[in-house]
């Protein structure tokens, strides 16, 4: 069963994204296929040059950099949201692939989790 974990909120504003990431890492730890999708404001997780220490938080960049090492199949970013937030795939902090969020895209997955 391939699960899509969706992060659609800004980093640092709340803990939804971090806890969604924990779900992805847990699935990967049990060798369950899992893909991470950043959509909406969530694409800002991929913004380079984050200074989370100014917010007394840990940077999400370090967490994300471990995703594929821990077995997350892929990091995907909503193409439209990247455009909306003036990000291009070649400047992202992680190697995420752009994707169009069509119904066919979601149908690839057996489960979609959005916290």
């Amino acid at each position, binding site marked *: *069963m391939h*699960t899509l974990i969706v992060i659609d909120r800004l980093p640092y504003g709340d803990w939804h994204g971090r*806890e969604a990431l924990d779900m992805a890492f847990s699935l990967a730890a049990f060798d369950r296929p899992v893909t991470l999708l950043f959509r909406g404001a969530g694409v800002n997780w991929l913004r380079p040059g984050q200074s989370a220490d100014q917010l007394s938080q840990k940077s999400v960049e370090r967490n994300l950099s471990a995703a594929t090492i821990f077995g997350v199949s892929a990091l995907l970013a909503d193409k439209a949201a990247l455009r909306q937030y003036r990000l291009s795939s070649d400047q992202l902090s992680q190697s995420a692939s752009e994707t169009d969020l069509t119904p066919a895209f979601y149908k690839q997955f057996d*489960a979609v989790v*959005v916290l």
Partner: protein
Amino acid sequence: MTRSPALSYTLVISGAPYTSQAPQSALAFAKALISGGHKLDRVFLYGDGVYLASSLVTPPSDEVNWTQLWSEFLMQTRTPAVACIASALRRGILDSAEQTRYEQPASNIAEPFEMAGLGDWVEATMTSSRILYFLPTD
């Protein structure tokens, strides 16, 4: 009319009581699925949903105590209920083992809730027919 085959469910609650309707909706659904002949495998509290497991929830006497209602339901139906340990510790929900481990002055998890890791949720994704998520209100 043929009856649909019985299914097994895991309910994931990630919205807190009193700031979201998630625990209330999940309880209504849990009762409905059991009365429909289906099986409730377990309840998994995640994120802000762990506040449901606080034994210190004390609403005014003319308001519903969702923790108490859930606890009664879980005990009557003998349904396992787990609060994600990382979410719970972060939000100040502790059982006696974690109280000891972190040298905190008290524990406050309501019976029959227990604490466990996300591995329980992963297992549920492999064993339950359906996983339903009851989310916080935006």
